[in-house]
Structures are given as structure tokens and as C-alpha cells.
């Protein structure tokens, strides 16, 4: 069976349309020139809005007490990974491919999930503790889940500005595949939360980083995936 053979009688590709309605022509008659969008405009606007609060948090909070004792290369690599996860996810959610008007939903979900997965693997395999400086959940009288929940909530909070501004932009663009693009947007916000935690959270065990920091990012991604389709309906 060849895939380019179609059954007879399917609706035709083109139909003779009616002329534009009076309403439409009235709207067109009153139109003024508009400034069109640039491919990177929405990305830049959301990135600036998203970075403001986390930037202020890092600047105003004390940095983690083990930062100086950790290998500098690892600190930079981990920060770069969180930052890349933010940029890649946000780009996939908001930047259309060259020649397109809308961002591609498939690219959004792929980027968001890949970012979460990459940080999960990094957290599991490459978490580093500085003995005597880094803390464990029991050092602050918390269980693993308790400390992870605390950091996940913080990551979600840091993700909110990114999610809110991104949702406003995407809601106006009204693309299909809102859940996929929302996922990427949430992952971007969550990655930003993880980046902030990387600099201020002194609990360095792999379990805490995976459950609390990456878990917070995953929660933000899930929140974005639910929120954008809902925002579209309103």
C-alpha cells in the first residue's frame, strides 16, 4: 500500500471562499501599520523579567557556606548547566525556528524534558560535597524529604516570575500544543530556581539535590504544562 494514494471523495484542498465579511473589511479599513515581532524579542523580555527576582535573591542572601571549599571547576560547570537548562528551555518555549511565526511545541517538550533529565543525571552522578563545610539534611534537623520539599518550594517560587510573564506572552500568541510549550517554560523557570539554590543552599547530598532542586524544576515544568492550556481557555 502506497502512502501517497488517497481514497476518492475526500474533501478538496481548496474551496471557493465567500468574499471577506463586512465586519472583517471594516476592521481592515480602519487598520494602522503595526510593528511586527522579532524572533528573539519575547525571549529577551521574559528572560529579563525572570532573572530580576532570582538575581536579587542571590545578591541579597548569604552564599552557601561551602562554596569556597568546593572545586571551582565543579561550581562553574554546575552553574553553567543550570543556566544552559534555563536558556535552552526558555528558547524552545518562546523562539520560533527561522522562517516560522510560532515556537514548535515538539521542540519545547523535548528541550524541557531533556533539561530536567540532564540535571537529574548530573545531580545523581556528579554531586560534590566539601567535608566539614557542606551540610546534610540531618545537620539542620530535617529529614531528606523535608529539606527537599523546602528547596522544591523555593525553586517553584523562583520559577513564578518566568512562568507568569511567559504565560502572558504565549497566551497572546495562542499556539497549539500549549502543554508542551508550558512544560518548557516551567522547566526554564525551575532551572532558574535550581541555579539560585546552587549558590545559596548548603545541603549538598545527591539525594537532596535531585529531590529538592531538580524535583523543584520538574514541579515547575509540570505546573507550566497545566497552566498554559488553562490560561489559553480564559
Amino acid at each position, binding site marked *: 500500500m502506497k502512502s501517497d494514494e488517497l481514497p476518492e471523495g475526500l*474533501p478538496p484542498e481548496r474551496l471557493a471562499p465567500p468574499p471577506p465579511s463586512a465586519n472583517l473589511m471594516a476592521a481592515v479599513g480602519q487598520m494602522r501599520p503595526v510593528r511586527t515581532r522579532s524572533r528573539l524579542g519575547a525571549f529577551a523580555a521574559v528572560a529579563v523579567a525572570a532573572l530580576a527576582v532570582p538575581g536579587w535573591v542571590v545578591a541579597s542572601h548569604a552564599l552557601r557556606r561551602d562554596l569556597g571549599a568546593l572545586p571551582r571547576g565543579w561550581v562553574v560547570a554546575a552553574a553553567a548547566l543550570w543556566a544552559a537548562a534555563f536558556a535552552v528551555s526558555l528558547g524552545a518555549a518562546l523562539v520560533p525556528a527561522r522562517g516560522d511565526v510560532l515556537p514548535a511545541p515538539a521542540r519545547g517538550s523535548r528541550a524541557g524534558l531533556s533539561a530536567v533529565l540532564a540535571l537529574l543525571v548530573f545531580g545523581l552522578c556528579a554531586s560534590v560535597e566539601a567535608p566539614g563545610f557542606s551540610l546534610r539534611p540531618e545537620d539542620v534537623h530535617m529529614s531528606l524529604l523535608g529539606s527537599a520539599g523546602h528547596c522544591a518550594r523555593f525553586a517553584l517560587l523562583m520559577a513564578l516570575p518566568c512562568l507568569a510573564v511567559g504565560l502572558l506572552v504565549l497566551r497572546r500568541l495562542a499556539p497549539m500544543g500549549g502543554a508542551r510549550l508550558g512544560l518548557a517554560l516551567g522547566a526554564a523557570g525551575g532551572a532558574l530556581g535550581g541555579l539560585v539554590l546552587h549558590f545559596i543552599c548548603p545541603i549538598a547530598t545527591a539525594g537532596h539535590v535531585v529531590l529538592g532542586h531538580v524535583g523543584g524544576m520538574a514541579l515547575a515544568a509540570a505546573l507550566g504544562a497545566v497552566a498554559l492550556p488553562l490560561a489559553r481557555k480564559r
Partner: protein
Amino acid sequence: MDAEATEATQLMTRYCAGDAAAFQALYALLAPRLLGYLFGLLRDRAAAEDMLQLTFLKLHEARASYVTGANPIPWTYTIAHRTALDELRKRKRARVRLTGDGALPSEPAAHVTGVPVETHQDQADRASPEATRQAVAALDRLPEAQKQALLLTKVHGRSTAEAAMIAGTTPGAIKQRAHRAYLTLRQLLSKDGEPAPRLTKEAP
């Protein structure tokens, strides 16, 4: 970018710059194919025409979202697609639709292909009313997502990447849905014992 996409891009750019004549030309270029797509989804010519007007009204309101130099055709399909989905959801919610005077609306006519433009007149003429009726009935039995994928890729010649963007899914899912739709359609049309008549169409 093909010639039609290039023309649409130039027209859209002029339209955004406030040229009303460019809008007319853009409407003439895109409305026939959008109406064909909307009719394929809605199976109701009058509703499809209403949705076409609504699609262009939405395009007009959203023209500032256009990215200069981009191909506007997949975008207009996306707007039409969303407009049709909203209409289909409304229909699902309304159990019985009555006309203005409270009567039940008449069934859509059996001859539902409408009037194709000249370029497709031959193709439309070759489809017998019985084949059309069967194809339409079979198309209506397909799941919504499969129907969309089939119409976009096989009837409207959109690439899988474009169709994925229009329907909001992945290219892999579009391929799979279109293939399943195609198989189901052929199965439905050959159920009466006779093999379904075939019409070769250029692959996208």
C-alpha cells in the same frame, strides 16, 4: 520557501505595514485552502465559511505577532485549526442545535464537497456522489486527531513538521496518526467487499 510561501510572506509584510490591498490579495491566496481545511474538519460548509471569517478576523487582530520574513501559511492554519477546535467543542457541549425559529436544523446535503476552485475542478469532478458520501462518512468516523493529521499532510500537503506545529504535537505523532487514519479509512471504504477506489495524489 516555495513561490506561494514567498508571495504570502511579501503580502503579509505589506499587510502589517497597513496596506489594505495586500490583505485582499492575502485573502485571495489563503482563503480557498483554509476554507478547504475548515470544511474538512467541520463537515459543514456554512460553519466553515463562518470560521473562515473568524480566522481572518483573528489574524487581523494578531498581525502584530507576525515575525517579519516568516512564512505565514502554517500560522494561518494554526489559527484556523484553533478556531475550528473551539467550534467543535461548542458543538459537543450543545446537545441539540436549533435554528432561529426553534426548529431542528436540516441535515447537511449529501453533496458536500462544495465548489472547488478551478485548479481542483477535475479532481472534484472525478469523485462520484456515492464515493464522496462514503469518504465523508468514513472521514467522520475517524478520531479527531487522526482526521486532522490526514487532512493536513495528505490533503493539504503540509510537511510533518508544519502539521505538528499546527496541531500542537510532534512530527512523529503526526506521521503515526496520518498513517493510522489512512489505514482506517481504506479499511472502512473497502468493507462492502469492493476494494476502495483510489485516487493518486502528489505526496507532500
